[in-house]
């Protein structure tokens, strides 16, 4: 009822004056006494009986107060105030506790925010949890042969859409580049070419403009594009007038129809597509793609189940379809099958493992922080035992005492959570600078949102429970009688061992984290010294460019560009190649190579990664030539076809026999003969962890391509040279499109990005863990010494040597350290197994790492122990004995 609610609200704000209550009671008593006097009682008797009748004044008062809605807020406020007073009473201890909590929870909040942004947060589409991802997989995947091409052709997309009844709808998306002509010249945009039903399928509403549906797009006569929020802001200045405008793209003209809302990235997690183009528009620009052969797999397929249909039904129907397709299109589909899974499961891959690992480690650090605080609070509560006993004696129930203590800890945790959020905010703001520059906007979206807030709050609550409840229960367990005795009771039998277990666990966790860090650093060093088959550490610019023209004309353009670049001041050398090792697209394109004597057929041959290079590539990239020659000017489009193979391929094709001068065949059904003119050393081509791979080099003159990478090396700073290179390129070849630019160092950074991130994370968390553990070890030893003051006093009075006392303290602590180190090494072994893919063959029990970590942990432990041990030395027997 409205009035009732209003009244309640009013009383919630304005409380009754306490005096009123007393005045009312007094009036009542007076009336009662008067009535009794009138009945003939004596004054004192009347008063006595009235008081008896009335009952407990205080309890009546209390009950009246408790009628007030929200009276418990007052109690809470009182508890909180009391908590604050207690915290202020031991500021040092509390500062340590708050800082510990801030670090522990803050690290977790930051890491959760990262993990959430990369992998956990649901995609910004309608009903993300029911999105099905469809992949095309090989039935007998040849290990590492030609990358993970699990995408599908557009023809397959149409088939899946028409012939799998379990799916309500299917959408397709493919990442391409789109050249946009802007006021600042040509720009390469990351485009998502999508099936016409995509926007409806994803359930996205435009920020401005209008998203057409499928039938409308199919009927459309003119090309259209849809901009991402970022592109709209960056390229078009956030001008709402862009809707309906015509923009020039490389394929022709297009009308901007809509801008998508900020944060929409479709199904992409790591990148942020800049423009969305319906397939119907794309084929207007590239008519030959209307009938792309089914062997070209470029589209990722996503589906939604029809109501009532199950994923298993969909899988079965996909199998039937796959069998059908492999008969119909053997070249594209034999040995392949379509499979489906929830997108949430298919997503992430390696990131997922890493994320869970890192979250687990961060959780362990928080656990360390909590046990530390639990120890601190136990110590603090010991000194408060008398206060608590007093309260119990005055009638506080154990529940009330617990409530009081837990409220205090909640105050502590509130400070910790607040600090943690600030810390996490700071840490997250640092992350973009740590991300590699790949030339495209990254889709990582790290922020403190309600999910992170909820996580942090939960971490705070759990921390309070873990680190508060144990001390609280232990403290309130003592009977008032025990506690009131002058003597401080000896802590229960369980308590010291509990703390020791805590410290040993902390040591074990820190130890294992540090070992892991050591292993990861060692792996990074190992990568640095790893033979990659080319010189990855020189100063070079990598510039992706699209050169116009065909055949000899394009070749001449390449030569002009390289010659001009070489002539620039500061430039050492220059070269043009299709790709450099570790291309963003993984292994990249493959050529089919037939083994000697193998007959051409639909399924013959092995796919081999290849690169098209100019004559200077080996020189510029320092790729060692072990036999024969490199490509030379005599290798032209009209001369006989030549190839260079690496040692793995040479061995694979011809065994150990000399291969220069022999021939191999390229292509599956109509193979082309090519002479092997040279052999290079082996290297890494797509992944640092890959097994030795066969590799093939073709001359650019014979295997041309318009999109290539210009490599310019310098003795000086590569990034400083970039503007000059860019400008020269624009002057020399105005029609050439500059796509993305990067230094070789940045490129290699990206290759080892995950490794360096892992080192960074485990190192900072391991360091934090060690710091907290040291504090914990110090705390427990200091506490033990303070408890033993009496005993030490007696010993010294009886003539114990100072060294003996010193060692007895140190020994107790070192025992814990040793136990922790043994456990930690075991734990590290388990962790090392889990991340063997990041360790590149470094053994989990690497002796140098182990030794290094043992030294570090031992040294910090001793440092933590020395302070309390010295304090034990300063115990004055006379004072210590008198104290009791």
């Amino acid at each position, binding site marked *: *009822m409205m*009035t*009732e609610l*209003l*009244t*309640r609200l009013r*009383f919630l704000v304005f409380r*009754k004056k306490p005096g*009123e*209550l007393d*005045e*009312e*009671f007094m*009036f*009542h008593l*007076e*009336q*009662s006494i*008067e*009535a009794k006097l009138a009945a003939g009682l004596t004054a004192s008797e009347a008063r006595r009986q009235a008081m008896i*009748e*009335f*009952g*407990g004044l205080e*309890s*009546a008062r209390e*009950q*009246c107060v*408790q*009628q*007030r*809605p929200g009276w418990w807020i007052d109690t809470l406020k009182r508890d909180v105030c009391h908590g604050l007073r207690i915290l202020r009473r031991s500021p040092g201890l509390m500062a340590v506790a708050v800082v510990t909590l801030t670090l522990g929870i803050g690290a977790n909040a930051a890491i959760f925010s990262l993990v959430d942004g990369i992998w956990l947060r649901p995609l910004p589409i309608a009903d993300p949890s029911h999105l099905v991802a469809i992949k095309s997989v090989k039935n007998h995947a040849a290990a590492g042969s030609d990358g993970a091409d699990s995408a599908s052709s557009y023809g397959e997309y149409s088939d899946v859409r028409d012939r799998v009844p379990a799916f309500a709808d299917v959408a397709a998306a493919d990442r391409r580049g789109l050249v946009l002509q802007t006021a600042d010249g040509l720009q390469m945009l990351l485009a998502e070419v999508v099936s016409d039903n995509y926007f409806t399928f994803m359930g996205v509403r435009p920020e401005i403009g209008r998203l057409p549906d499928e039938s409308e797009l199919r009927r459309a006569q003119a090309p259209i594009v849809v901009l991402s929020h970022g592109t709209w802001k960056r390229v078009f200045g956030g001008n709402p007038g862009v809707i309906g405008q015509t923009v020039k793209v490389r394929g022709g003209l297009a009308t901007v129809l809509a801008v998508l809302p900020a944060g929409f990235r479709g199904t992409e997690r790591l990148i942020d597509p800049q423009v969305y183009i319906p397939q119907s528009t794309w084929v207007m620009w590239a008519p030959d793609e209307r009938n792309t052969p089914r062997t070209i797999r470029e589209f990722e397929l996503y589906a939604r189940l029809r109501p009532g249909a199950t994923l298993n039904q969909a899988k079965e129907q996909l199998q039937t379809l796959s069998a059908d397709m492999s008969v119909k299109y053997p070249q594209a589909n034999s040995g392949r099958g379509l499979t489906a899974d929830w997108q949430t499961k298919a997503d992430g891959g390696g990131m997922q493992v890493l994320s869970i690992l890192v979250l687990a480690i961060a959780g362990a650090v928080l656990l360390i922080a909590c046990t530390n605080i639990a120890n601190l609070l136990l110590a603090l509560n010991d000194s408060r035992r008398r206060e608590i006993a007093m309260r119990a004696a005055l009638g506080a129930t154990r529940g009330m005492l617990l409530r009081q203590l837990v409220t205090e800890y909640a105050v502590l945790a509130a400070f910790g959570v607040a600090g943690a959020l600030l810390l996490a905010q700071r840490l997250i703001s640092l992350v973009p600078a740590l991300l590699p520059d790949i030339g495209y906007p990254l889709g990582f979206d790290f922020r403190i949102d309600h999910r992170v807030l909820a996580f942090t709050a939960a971490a705070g609550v759990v921390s309070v429970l873990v680190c508060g409840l144990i001390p609280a229960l232990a403290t309130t367990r003592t009977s008032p009688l025990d506690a009131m005795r002058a003597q401080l009771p000896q802590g229960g039998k369980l308590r010291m061992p509990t703390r020791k277990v805590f410290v040993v666990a902390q040591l074990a966790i820190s130890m294992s984290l540090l070992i892991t860090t050591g292993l990861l650093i060692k792996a990074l060093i190992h990568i640095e010294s790893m033979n990659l088959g080319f010189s990855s550490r020189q100063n070079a610019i990598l510039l992706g460019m699209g050169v116009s023209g065909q055949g000899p004309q394009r070749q001449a353009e390449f030569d002009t560009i390289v010659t001009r670049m070489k002539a620039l001041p500061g430039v050492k050398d220059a070269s043009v190649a299709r790709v450099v090792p570790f291309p963003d697209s993984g292994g990249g394109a493959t050529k089919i190579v037939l083994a000697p004597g193998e007959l051409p057929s639909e399924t013959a041959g092995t796919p081999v990664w290849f690169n098209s290079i100019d004559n200077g590539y080996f020189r510029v990239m320092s790729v060692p030539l072990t036999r024969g020659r490199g490509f030379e000017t005599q290798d032209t489009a009209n001369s006989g076809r030549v190839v260079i193979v690496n040692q793995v391929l040479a061995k694979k094709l011809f065994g150990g026999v000399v291969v220069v001068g022999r021939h191999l065949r390229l292509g599956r059904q109509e193979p082309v003969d090519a002479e092997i003119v040279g052999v290079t050393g082996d290297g890494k081509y797509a992944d640092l962890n890959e097994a030795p791979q066969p590799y093939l080099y073709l001359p650019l003159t014979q295997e041309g391509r318009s999109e290539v990478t210009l490599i310019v090396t310098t003795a000086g700073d590569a990034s400083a040279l970039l503007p000059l290179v860019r400008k020269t390129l624009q002057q020399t070849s105005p029609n050439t499109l500059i796509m993305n630019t990067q230094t070789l160092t940045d490129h290699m950074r990206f290759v080892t990005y995950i490794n360096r991130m892992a080192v960074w994370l485990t190192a900072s968390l391991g360091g934090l863990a060690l710091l907290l553990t040291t504090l914990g070890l110090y705390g427990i030893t200091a506490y033990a010494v303070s408890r033993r003051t009496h005993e030490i006093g007696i010993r010294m009075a009886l003539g114990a040597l100072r060294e003996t006392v010193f060692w007895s303290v140190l020994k107790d602590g070192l025992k814990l350290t040793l136990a922790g180190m043994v456990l930690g090494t075991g734990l590290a072994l388990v962790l090392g197994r889990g991340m063997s893919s990041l360790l590149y063959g470094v053994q989990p029990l690497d002796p140098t790492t182990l030794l290094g970590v043992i030294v570090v942990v031992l040294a910090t432990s001793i440092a933590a122990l020395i302070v309390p041990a010295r304090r034990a030395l300063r115990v004055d027997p006379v004072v210590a004995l008198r104290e009791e």
Partner: protein
Amino acid sequence: MPTPTDLLQGTLDLLILKTLALEPIHGWGIAQRIQQVSKDVLQIGQGSLYPALYRLEYKGWIKSDWGNSENNRRAKFYRLTAAGRKQLETELATWDRLSAAIALVLGRTAEAQS
């Protein structure tokens, strides 16, 4: 003196509302009136009277004002609000239904009692 009967949960509210329906009156008066009307059967302990009054006031069913008592002492007078009057009607109806039901269970028809 007859032993005071324990009041049924919630009945005290009804009694207070009913008493206040006649005229505004202070706490002592309420207790006295209930005792008189019930011929000393119902004695309201102050320990429960005042919390009940506060509860009712917080619910907005009664209101209090300071005034002067019969013997010119400052006293707090409670009176029924419009919402309280409505509440009284609801509670009376509930009471009638309940007591009739109890009477039926105990084998005394409502007619027999009246």
